[in-house]
């Protein structure tokens, strides 16, 4: 079948299959393989510089922004690009790139982190609030035209653009190009540096974010100019879903990260203990960590597609009941748990979702003050609010008394007490509340297929979200009568079917189906086919008497002691390592 929107175009954007991605041997990579210094025939940078130097037309400002924009940039007006000269490099930028380049060459991870997390943000705030950083060609001479450094710089350049300004269609495509080059270089195993985990996480996070943003962008066809449509036709392979998934998959595989984690369990390898760094050997941590974070990236992409089962499978090698590298960087910790919890919610494993949300919300409550200055602070707060909403949903569908910690519970009640009461009522108002909370807290679902670029042009960016919402509310509807049953069961230790039917104003056969529904919905099936009970109030029926059983809460001492033992052991080890002069 032909795809009407797809023009056969010998562009350099081919759909990367997994094999292609794994064996990419473009000229750029071959160059980089020799040394960190590329040759002058580096065409990638030339082409991109030519594009960047052209005038900027910003998209309308109605994109989903992850970061709060400074008030003046919100209009997307032409006033912002008047003063911008991509080739002008202020002294502070010169110093910045020179020092960053040196630290990378010297593998001074601590300094790199300071510059990446601190100086970059400060310079952005001071000098680049409303315009992009200098172009990569302008700074390249100061860093020996180092090919890999330029790719890294460009990645930061685009990330800054997305955060502070609105990327044009062309810039989105260029960013894709940059990620392809960057990941190909890494996959080819020629990157010989140690970078801070924060940076590596941000790369994967941003990659998935830009993919999601592009899917939203190209699904809004109604108000696009002819030029923009032409761009979509021409670069139809940019941000294609196969490419995104295959790059993430390739990073996971090439890094052999699942083997590393397996070996670590058997005590044959150090990974978590050193946060993924290699302090002694100095081997590169880039591929390994990108592979690790790509597992979380895959979970995220699958959630965006609505495939929760596969998403959880991708995350499976990471054991989230233990400390791990995933919770070293707070952004990765939150993203992991948010998507894990959401996937479990959609899979009806409510208790599991509640447990994980509870843990992370407690963590954020305790430690968010330490991140107030960080550029991720707003994102942390946003996800925090979303997870409270999801927790409220879970607890309304599956009330539990003892799974939520006190402080988290009081926060939850502050925010959502009224709404939770409404949700338990299961009338029309309840559905409105479920709708509202789900819409607020859900991921930005995407339609992964290529757009049909013919009349009539529509906006279909909401289709995926509407489907997930509809199916979610459908599930809520099926559980409609369960809340009533639960409140009755709490009042009795035994009650006959006849009496209970009378109280609930239904006939006996209907009551039997309701009771069976309760049992079915409250017993989820996990990935191994095991039955997991979710209910806090349970019962069994003997002929026509219902016997109620209330479950008792249990304290999980074993887990707690285990974690403390490991933590103290680690501390003792660290203390031992300190040598006093």
């Amino acid at each position, binding site marked *: 079948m032909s795809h009407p929107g797809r023009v056969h175009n010998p562009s350099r954007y081919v759909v990367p299959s997994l094999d292609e991605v794994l064996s990419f041997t473009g000229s750029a990579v071959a160059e980089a393989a020799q040394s960190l210094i590329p040759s002058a025939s580096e065409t990638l940078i030339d082409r991109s510089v030519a594009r960047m130097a052209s005038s900027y037309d910003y998209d309308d400002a109605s994109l989903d922004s992850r970061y709060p924009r400074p008030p003046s940039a919100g209009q997307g007006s032409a006033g912002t690009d008047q003063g911008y000269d991509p080739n002008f490099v202020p002294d502070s930028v010169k110093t910045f790139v020179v020092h960053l380049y040196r630290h990378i060459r010297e593998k001074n991870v601590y300094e790199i982190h300071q510059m990446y997390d601190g100086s970059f943000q400060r310079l952005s705030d001071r000098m680049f609030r409303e315009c992009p950083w200098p172009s990569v060609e302008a700074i390249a001479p100061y860093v020996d035209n180092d090919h890999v450094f330029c790719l890294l710089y460009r990645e930061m350049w685009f990330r800054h653009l997305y955060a502070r300004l609105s990327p044009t269609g062309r810039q989105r495509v260029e960013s894709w190009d940059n990620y392809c080059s960057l990941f190909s270089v890494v996959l080819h195993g020629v990157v010989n540096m140690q970078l801070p985990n924060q940076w590596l996480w941000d790369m994967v996070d941003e990659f998935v974010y830009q993919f999601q943003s592009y899917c939203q962008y190209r699904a809004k066809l109604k108000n696009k100019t002819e030029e923009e449509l032409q761009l979509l036709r021409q670069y139809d392979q940019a941000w294609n*879903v196969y490419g995104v998934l295959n790059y993430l998959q390739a990073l996971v595989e090439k890094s052999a990260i699942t083997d590393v984690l397996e070996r670590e369990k058997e005590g044959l390898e150090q990974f978590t203990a050193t946060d993924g760094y290699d302090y002694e050997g100095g081997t590169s941590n880039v591929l390994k960590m990108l592979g690790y974070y790509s597992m979380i990236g895959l979970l995220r992409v699958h959630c965006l597609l609505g495939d929760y089962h*596969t998403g959880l499978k991708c995350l499976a090698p990471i054991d989230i009941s233990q400390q791990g590298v995933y919770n070293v960087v707070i952004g990765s910790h939150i993203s992991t748990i948010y998507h894990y919890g959401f996937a479990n919610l959609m899979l009806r494993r409510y208790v599991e979702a509640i447990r994980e949300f509870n843990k992370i919300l407690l963590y954020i409550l305790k430690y968010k003050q330490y991140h107030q200055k960080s550029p991720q602070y707003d994102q942390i707060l946003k996800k925090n609010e979303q997870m409270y909403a999801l927790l409220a949903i879970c607890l309304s569908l599956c009330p539990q008394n003892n799974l939520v910690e006190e402080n988290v519970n009081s926060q939850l009640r502050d925010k959502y007490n009224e709404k939770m009461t409404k949700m338990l009522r299961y009338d029309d108002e309840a559905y409105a509340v479920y709708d509202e909370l789900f819409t607020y807290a859900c991921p930005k679902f995407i339609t992964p*297929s290529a757009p049909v670029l013919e009349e009539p042009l529509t906006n279909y960016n909401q289709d995926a979200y509407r489907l997930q919402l509809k199916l979610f509310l459908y599930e809520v509807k*099926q559980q409609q009568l369960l809340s009533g049953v639960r409140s009755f069961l709490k009042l009795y230790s035994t009650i006959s079917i006849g009496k209970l039917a009378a109280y609930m104003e239904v006939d006996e056969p209907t009551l039997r189906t309701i*009771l069976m*529904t309760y*049992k079915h919905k409250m017993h989820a099936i996990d990935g191994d086919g095991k039955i997991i009970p979710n209910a806090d109030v349970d019962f*069994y029926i003997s*002929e026509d008497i219902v016997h109620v059983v209330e479950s008792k809460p249990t304290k999980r001492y074993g887990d707690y002691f285990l974690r403390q033992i490991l933590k103290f052991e680690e501390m003792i080890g660290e203390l031992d390592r300190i040598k006093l002069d």
Partner: protein
Amino acid sequence: MGRDQQQQQQAAYTVEQLVAVNPYNPDILTDLENYVNEQVSSQTYSLDANLCLLRLYQFEPGRISIPIVVRILIKALMAMPAPDFSLCLFLIPEQVQMEEQIKTLIVLSHYLETARFRQFWEEAAKNRSTLEVVPGFEQAIQAYAIHVLSLTYQKVPRPVIAEAINIEGLSLDKFLEYHVANSGWVLEKGHSRSQLMVLPRNEFNHPELKKNTVDGMPFEHVTRIFPILS
């Protein structure tokens, strides 16, 4: 005959491998479709492969095949109580869900999810042609019905079983006899002289049997502290 079976086994092995190793690849779409048909004819089931196919349909909406989707959904229904049916629906676009056959399956799933067995069997009878495509459907649903009954009842009246599994009269007697012999069911007389089946004890209908596994720990976690303890 043996060689065909072996070849079939080999083909299935290859598809599973494909799904595990290289799932984001439009070229395997036909293989996955063939695999669905294979699952139907050999009465096997693979959620991962079917989800992979539904994902590919999402990426290439022009190549979707409604009969295949119908088969996947029927197979998913047969996997109940696992939530496979919902998992599949999450991946199927709304317009496709409007197809007659799929709408019917959604209704059937609704009845099963809310334990409305009588309505389910009525509706299923009206749609025999759709469901006949997949052998083993009836037995799978009956197994699900028994599962829900065992979660709920210690002692269940005969009419309730009859309605749940859609068997009556002599066939029901045979069915019950079979389970008395093989699954540990016991026939009893309830008050008002009705027949009762006593279902096997499990932790869901006998709460005292519930092992307190909440405080248990997987063994591999404990092995982590062995180096410390030694």
